[in-house]
C-alpha cells in the first residue's frame, strides 16, 4: 500500500535504529515527549519503544483530545442527550468515555439517541433527515478536527438548518505544550511534534519551543520510520547543541500550514479566556468558542450548560501520566479497576490514550 509500506520497510527501520544507537550518548538519559496521541499509539502498536536504546525515554504527551477532556464537559454533553428530542452525535472515540455515572455508549444502551459519526457534516445530514429532532454534535479535537466543525457551522448557516447545534470542546495544542514546558516537575530534552495538527497550523508556531525554551522539536509522521527518523533528528540536534523546528512530515505538513483551514477557524471561532484540561488544570486561551455570529448553533447557549467541574477519582493518576511523570503501569489503578472495558480515567479510553495503548499492545512491563 502506497504511503504506508515504504514507511514500514524493515531494512530501513533497522538502519535507522542503528543510527539512533550511534547518536545516543550512553551516559545521557534522554527524555523526549511525543505530543500527539497518534504517535503514542504507533510507538506501542509497532513496538518502537523496545527497539530504541533504553536511555532514550519516550514521554507521552497531552495530544489525545478525548484524554484531556475533563469529566465535567462529558457530563454536560450527556445531560444534553438526556433530552428525548435530542440526537447527540460524536466521534467513535467519544462513545466510551466515562462521565461521572455513564458513558455515551451506556446512555445509548439505555435508550438515548446517541450516534457515532465520522464527520461533523454527517450530523448536518441527520438534522435534515429528522426535522423534528435536535441534532447536537459533541465537537472535540485540536486544530485537526476544528476546521471541519467550522465548515459544518458555516454550512448550517448557509443552508438555514435550525435544528442543529455544536457542543464545542475544541482545544489548541500550543498552550498545552507551553504549559508542559512551564511545569516544574518535568524535564524534557525535545519534542516529537504533532503531525495532524501541523497540517493545519504549519510549523512556524512552534518557534517558541526552539527559541525561548531551547528544545528541539521535529514535526513527525505516524509510521514507524517517521517516528524513528524524528527521534534521530532530535538526537542529532542535541548532539550538535541546536534547538530548531524541523519538519520530518513534509509530505503532508506544509511549513505555512493550511491557509483555508486557518481562515475557517478564524471566521467561526474565538478564544475562550480559559478552559479546563484533564490532568493539566485550567489553561488560559487554550480552547475555542463559537463566535457570536454563529451563536444560534451553539449548544452551550441553546441548552444552557452549567460549567460543571468534576474532579477525577482520587486514585486515578491520569494527570501524572499525562505529564509524563508516571508511566501508565505505575498508576495504582492500571489494569485493575481501570482497563479499556471499564476505564476510570480517559487515558484508558481512546486507543490514542497512553494507558490504553500500553494496555493493548505491551505484554511485558519491563519493556519500558
Amino acid at each position, binding site marked *: *500500500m502506497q504511503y504506508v509500506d515504504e514507511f514500514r520497510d524493515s531494512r530501513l*527501520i533497522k538502519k535507522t535504529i542503528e543510527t539512533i544507537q550511534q547518536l545516543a550518548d550512553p551516559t545521557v538519559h534522554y527524555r523526549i515527549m511525543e505530543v500527539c496521541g497518534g504517535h503514542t499509539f504507533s510507538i506501542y*502498536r509497532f513496538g518502537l519503544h523496545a527497539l530504541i536504546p533504553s536511555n532514550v525515554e519516550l514521554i507521552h504527551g497531552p495530544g489525545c483530545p478525548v484524554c484531556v477532556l475533563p469529566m465535567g464537559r462529558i457530563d454536560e454533553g450527556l445531560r444534553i442527550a438526556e433530552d428525548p428530542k435530542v440526537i447527540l452525535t460524536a466521534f*467513535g472515540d467519544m462513545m*466510551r468515555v466515562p462521565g461521572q455515572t455513564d458513558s455515551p455508549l451506556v446512555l445509548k*444502551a439505555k435508550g438515548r439517541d446517541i450516534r457515532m459519526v465520522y464527520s461533523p457534516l454527517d450530523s448536518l445530514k441527520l438534522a435534515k433527515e429528522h426535522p423534528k429532532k435536535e441534532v447536537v454534535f459533541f465537537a472535540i479535537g485540536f486544530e485537526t478536527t476544528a476546521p471541519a466543525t467550522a465548515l459544518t457551522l458555516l454550512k448550517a448557516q448557509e443552508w438555514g438548518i435550525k435544528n442543529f447545534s455544536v457542543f464545542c470542546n475544541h482545544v489548541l495544542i500550543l498552550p498545552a505544550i507551553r504549559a508542559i514546558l512551564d511545569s516544574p516537575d518535568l524535564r524534557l530534552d525535545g519534542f516529537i511534534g504533532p503531525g495532524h495538527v501541523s497540517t493545519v497550523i504549519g510549523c512556524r508556531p512552534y518557534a517558541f519551543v526552539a527559541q525561548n525554551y531551547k528544545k528541539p522539536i521535529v514535526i513527525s509522521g505516524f509510521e514507524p520510520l517517521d517516528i524513528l527518523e524524528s527521534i534521530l533528528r532530535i538526537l542529532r540536534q542535541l548532539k550538535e547543541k541546536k534547538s530548531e523546528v524541523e519538519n520530518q512530515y513534509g509530505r503532508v505538513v506544509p511549513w505555512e500550514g493550511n491557509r483555508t483551514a486557518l481562515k475557517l477557524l478564524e471566521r467561526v471561532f474565538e478564544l475562550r479566556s480559559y478552559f479546563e484540561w484533564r490532568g493539566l488544570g485550567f489553561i488560559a486561551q487554550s480552547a475555542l468558542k463559537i463566535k457570536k455570529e454563529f451563536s444560534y448553533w451553539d449548544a452551550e447557549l441553546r441548552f444552557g450548560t452549567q460549567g460543571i467541574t468534576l474532579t477525577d477519582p482520587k486514585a486515578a493518576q491520569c494527570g501524572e501520566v499525562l505529564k509524563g511523570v508516571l508511566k501508565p503501569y505505575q498508576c495504582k489503578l492500571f489494569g485493575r479497576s481501570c482497563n479499556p472495558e471499564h476505564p476510570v480515567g480517559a487515558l484508558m479510553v481512546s486507543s490514542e490514550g497512553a494507558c490504553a495503548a500500553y494496555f*493493548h*499492545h*505491551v505484554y*511485558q512491563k519491563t519493556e519500558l
Partner: protein
Amino acid sequence: MKLEQCIELAHGAGGKSSRRLIEQVILAECRNPLLEPLADAAIIEWDKTRYALTTDSYVVSPLAFPGGSIGELAVNGTVNDLAVSGAKPLVILSSWILEAGLSMEVFQREVKAMARAAKAASVIIAGGDTKVVEHGKGDGLYITTTGYGLVEPGVNLGPHRVEVGDKILLSGPIGDHGITVLLARGEIELEATLKTDSRPLWPMIEPMIRLEPSAIKWMRDPTRGGLASVLNELAHDIGFGVMIEEELIPIRQEVRGACEILGLDPLHIASEGQFVAVVDQKKAVDFQKLLNDIPGGEEARIIGVISDKPSGKVVTLSAYGGSRMVDMLVGDPLPRIC
C-alpha cells in the same frame, strides 16, 4: 470482572464482553459437560458415533451486501461452526423473525439465498419456524439456524491437545466480510471493490481430515471479533503463548486501506469464509500445500507458532524486530455484521 448493568452492543461483538456474558450468566446457570468447553458446537456421542450440534443467530444490517446476504450467511455461518468442529454438515433448521411491513420480495429473495447456500453446502433444510413482530420492533428480519453434523472418525480437537511448537495455519485473507458490510451500510463515504468472503468451509477442511485427522488439534472460524479474538481465546484456554508474524497474515489491500483510514485493526475484523487451525508442526507444510491446491485456498499460510511464553497472550512479531500484544476486541467499533 463485574457484569454491566444493562445489555450493551459490546455484549454482541464477540470480544471480551461477549465472553463475560456467556461465562458469568449463561454458563453459570446452565453448566454441564457439553456446554462447558464453550466450543463452536456441542459434540454428543451416542452409540459410538459423534454428532455435532450448533446454533447461531443472524442480525446483520444491511440485509444484503456485495457478494452475499443474510439468507446465505445464515447457512454458511452455521455449517462452518460444524466444519471447524471437524463435523460434516448434514442438516439445518431455520427460524425466521420477520418484521411486519417487510417486503415479500425481500423475504422471498432471502429464502432463495438460503436454499441456494444450502445446496452449495450440501445440507438440507429440514425444518424451521416463522414468527412476525410488530412494525418497528425488528430490523426487517432476523434468522436463527441450527446445524447438525457428523464428526469424522479420528478427529480430536480441543485446546487440551495443543502443544508448544505447533503451527498456526490460516486459510486465507481476513476481514473481507466485516469491511464489506461496514462499507455497505453507507455511513462512511468510502468505496472499495470488495465482497464478503462468506462460503462453506467443509470443502477445505474435509481434505485436511482425510490427510491426517490427528494432526489437526484445534480449529475456529474468525467471525465476530476477528482473528485476534479467537487466538486470544486459544491462548487463554491453553495457557501458552500464541506468536504470529504480522507480515505473514494475508490481508487484502482494500481491507488494509479501509482499516488504516478508519483506525481499525484488521485482526479484529470478521471473516465469514476463513478458518484458523493449530496443527502438528511436522504436518503443517503438508496441510498448507494441500489447502493451496484447493480453489479458494491459494492464500492459506502458516502465520505463527505456539510458544511457551508469554503465557495466555497473543503476540505479533514484525520483520524489523518489533513486537506487540494483540488484545481481544474491546467494545463494538463496528455495526452488526453477522
